[in-house]
């Protein structure tokens, strides 16, 4: 499993949460977002890439600039209090499935 695409893994990082808070108020370019942090620009880019991969942010081209927008639908999904519970069982059942497939292959 690619943990980077895991939305809960994505929001576990304080810098990424700070980025979400920033972009929540208005769409911003990578440069404008990076200006809010002491971290190196490539590090911020990496965070943006992770947030985009798990669909918390979306990119929109505006002239030569790329703006990052918050995806409210995805945010709502994770704000739902049942979601972590569902996620917990989904992880467990994914593990069950993987183990039994290996088991089947070894028979």
């Amino acid at each position, binding site marked *: *499993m690619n943990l980077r695409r895991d939305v809960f893994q994505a929001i576990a990082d304080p810098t990424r949460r700070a980025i979400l808070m920033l972009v929540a108020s208005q769409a911003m370019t990578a440069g404008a977002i990076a200006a809010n942090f002491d971290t190196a620009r490539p590090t911020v880019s990496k965070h943006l890439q992770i947030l985009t991969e798990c669909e918390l942010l979306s990119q929109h081209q505006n002239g030569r600039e790329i703006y990052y927008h918050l995806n409210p639908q995805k945010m709502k999904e994770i704000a739902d209090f049942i979601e972590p519970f569902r*996620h917990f*069982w989904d992880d467990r059942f994914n593990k069950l499935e993987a183990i039994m497939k290996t088991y089947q292959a070894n028979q």
Partner: protein
Amino acid sequence: METKTNVHAEEGKQEILITRVFDLPVELLFKAYMVPEIVEQWMGTKVLKLENYAHGGYQFETTDPRGHVHRFSGVVHEFCLNQKITRTFEMENTAFPVQLEFLEFEKLTETTSKLTMHIVFKSIASRNQLLQMPFAMGINLAHNRLQAFFTN
């Protein structure tokens, strides 16, 4: 990320329904609930006892990252091979009341199957408390902080 598990928790009811379709024959899915060594792997727990028959019981033990030992146990009411398990579930030494679990295993095709877990709680409050356990267990600390941010 694709997710295949559904949780249905109707407002004002003291039950939940968890459903999941597996890319496995029903016999293999059922086996994952029967064989202690397999249960240990996917549940991430130690199996102290697993008696697969009516009036039998089971007991699991996990150790959290801080080294605290938690035990979970219950008694089996019904056990029908490849079809269903009815059992109680209890977290030992906690304030959580015992719950009743109806597990149904269904063959969909030769290679796919469906599990339906119907859990009945003592009260609506105890159901909601359990639903929020993944927060309490620290699985989703970040989610909490984020939610706090958006509600404050």
